[in-house]
């Protein structure tokens, strides 16, 4: 099986879907001739033609509105928003239109679009190239939100998203596009080579939306993470030396509630890790769900490790970014409660 990094796996998924389904088309800022600023659509225009993969005006609202119209016609548009920070000009189209088209029209129309967008920090992108906006999407009923943490899942989730008849937002962790990392900013990225999840099969396979992955089994505490934070979690668990179970949620909506409940009932402790700022973040929803469904099994308060409640500051990226040390402290607090 070919070893791929996440950018290559995503490119491969798009390539295969373009080849297999004439109703799939790709557009977004700089995605055509140039292949996207992160190179995810590299070579697709040359291979599949101008009308299958093309550049758009810089108009995020226009991109999403156009994709909704195409989806309503019967196509399966896959659009790129260059940075997740720039999805906000398209927010109204996503929230008021894409999310509710099926419901509002009594099932007459729907919007099977896939929105791909790089998210997250750790690349010195400053406050407008670093955000993790998942919570604002998961709050909107009618949108699906997925976040891969490795090349294998990235390809399988993207194919599943494209084939899904609902609007799906895929947040791509740009920090680990080229290789996983352990959350320590003073060490280089590890190559994906040798990583089991970098073996990406050819052909169309699916990672179903709504299924968490068990990254690591353990008995004493459950760690919930997704995207880049899965790798930080692994480093933190190792550093803390605890028998932790790590779930990679992969899909936030639909959420694999059964996997979460089963794990927390088994371990009796739960630590949630995400990069977005804490207040009103997705960790709050996870915490409430665990509390509602596992209260009798909890041996310690649920812990949340997250970004601070400030905008992402350029000079302090690595103070903002939740690293293994903060997870270690939370794991210790949970274990010693």
């Amino acid at each position, binding site marked *: 099986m070919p070893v791929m990094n996440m950018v290559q796996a995503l490119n491969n998924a798009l390539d295969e879907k373009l080849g297999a389904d004439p109703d799939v088309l790709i557009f977004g800022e*700089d995605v055509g001739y140039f292949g996207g*600023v992160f190179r995810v659509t590299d070579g697709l225009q040359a291979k599949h033609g101008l*009308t299958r993969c093309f550049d*758009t005006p810089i108009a995020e609202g226009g991109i999403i509105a156009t994709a909704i119209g195409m989806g309503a016609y019967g196509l399966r548009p896959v659009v790129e928003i260059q940075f997740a920070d720039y999805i906000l000009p398209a927010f109204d189209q996503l929230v008021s239109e894409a999310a509710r088209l099926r419901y509002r029209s009594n099932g007459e129309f729907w919007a099977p679009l896939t929105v791909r967008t790089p998210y997250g920090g750790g690349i*010195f992108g*400053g406050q407008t190239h670093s955000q993790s906006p998942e919570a604002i999407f998961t709050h909107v009923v009618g949108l699906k939100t997925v976040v891969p943490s490795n090349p294998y899942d990235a390809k399988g989730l993207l194919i599943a998203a494209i084939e899904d008849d609902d609007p799906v937002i895929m947040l791509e962790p740009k920090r680990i596009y080229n290789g996983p990392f352990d959350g320590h900013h003073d060490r280089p990225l590890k190559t994906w080579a040798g990583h089991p999840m970098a073996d990406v099969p050819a052909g169309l396979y699916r990672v179903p939306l709504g299924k968490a992955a068990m990254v690591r089994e353990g008995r004493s505490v459950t760690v919930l993470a997704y995207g880049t934070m899965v790798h930080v979690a692994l480093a933190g668990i190792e550093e803390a030396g605890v028998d932790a179970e790590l779930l990679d949620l992969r899909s936030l909506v639909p959420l694999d509630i059964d996997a979460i409940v089963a794990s927390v009932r088994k371990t009796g402790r739960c630590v949630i890790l995400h990069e977005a700022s804490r207040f009103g973040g997705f960790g709050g929803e996870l915490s409430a769900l665990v509390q509602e469904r596992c209260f009798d099994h909890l041996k310690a308060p649920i812990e949340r490790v997250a970004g601070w*409640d*400030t905008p992402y500051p*350029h000079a302090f990226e690595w103070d903002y970014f939740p690293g293994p040390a903060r997870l270690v402290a939370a794991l210790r607090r949970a274990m010693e409660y």
Partner: protein
Amino acid sequence: MDNLPRLNLHIPEPPARPGDHPDFGGMKLPAAGETARPDVDAAEPTMRDMPFGMIRVLDGDHRAVGPWDPHLDVDILHRGLRAMMLTRTFDDRLFRAHRQGKTSFYMKSTGEEAIAVAQSLMLGARDMCFPTYRVVGWLMARNYPLLDLVNQIFSNAGDPLRGRQLPILYSARDYGFYSISGNLGSRYGHAVGWAMASAYKGDDRIALAYVGEGTTAEGGFHEAITFASVYRAPVILCVTNNQWAISSFSGIAGANETTFAAKALAYGIPGLRVDGNDFLAVWAATQWAAERARLNLGATLIELFTYRASGHSTADDPAKYRPADEALQWPLGDPIERLKGHLIAIGEWDEERHAALQSALEEEVRAAVRAGEAIGTLGKSKPELASMFEDVFKQPDWRVIEQRREMGV
């Protein structure tokens, strides 16, 4: 029905790609002096041809010709040339600093220096510019301290914005320079609001805003012009058409269908199209629009026709999407060379003085960079960590207080 053609989807493409010969042959450029100059208080319906002409003052022999010649003092021409040269020198030096790992990011304005410099010198100290990342010339023209720019770029302990912004996203209120946002087009409307506030207060200040041609596609651009038109806001709305938006040529923003200045027509405000590499033309058009604004005649849209001679940013390699020598073929030349040529033509400059000024500017920039490096380059020196939690709100709320404590600062 059967006789109708099948519909097909049109995707525009630029005239030349890497490996092709740059092709500016289809470009219609009026000669210097050819485009008429309406009176500033002329009614908008009488100037609907303006967006299809081009205001140009400097001719092929570097002479100032035609109705738009602003007849500038030699002193201003010298200040303009100096600020443009300083801008380019600074850009080149800090671009190299990025390559040396001293900062995370840089963007140059090479080829576009006349725009920001002429407009900065033309407008008053109390007016407000709503800038983009490509108009550092505005600050250069107003003698903003170079060291402060360097410190911001290095995100070091001397950074006037305390490490919060990406390098070059400056803010300099005292220099009439509003905070730059990374979100394209998001501040065009702020300029209109600021100008409306000035009108509401009975003040005499006006605003000027920039977007690139790519950004004219954003909804915020159209919303801002609508407000500017409806309320006759005293604002100058500029589009720097430098032909490229990262890898996308101006046709992706609609340039094949009409000019960017012509966007003004549907909103009923004047739309001027200006040779953006001609310092005198930029000055004259800005002066015209500023006079209109100050006379309560409302907003003007100005397309500044230019060329982005360098890459989009340090993250970009333009040779991947356009002919490598396209910048050299740009028919409107280099703005610095043209102003220099003009000063020489009128007997106010020579090659020796030019070379001496260039080395003086290089030394000035080198000194500023050295001073910035002494404070620290990216990661080697930082503002106070505690400052990360300041200015989130005017008064910190409990979350900020608790988290600051948690971090131990």
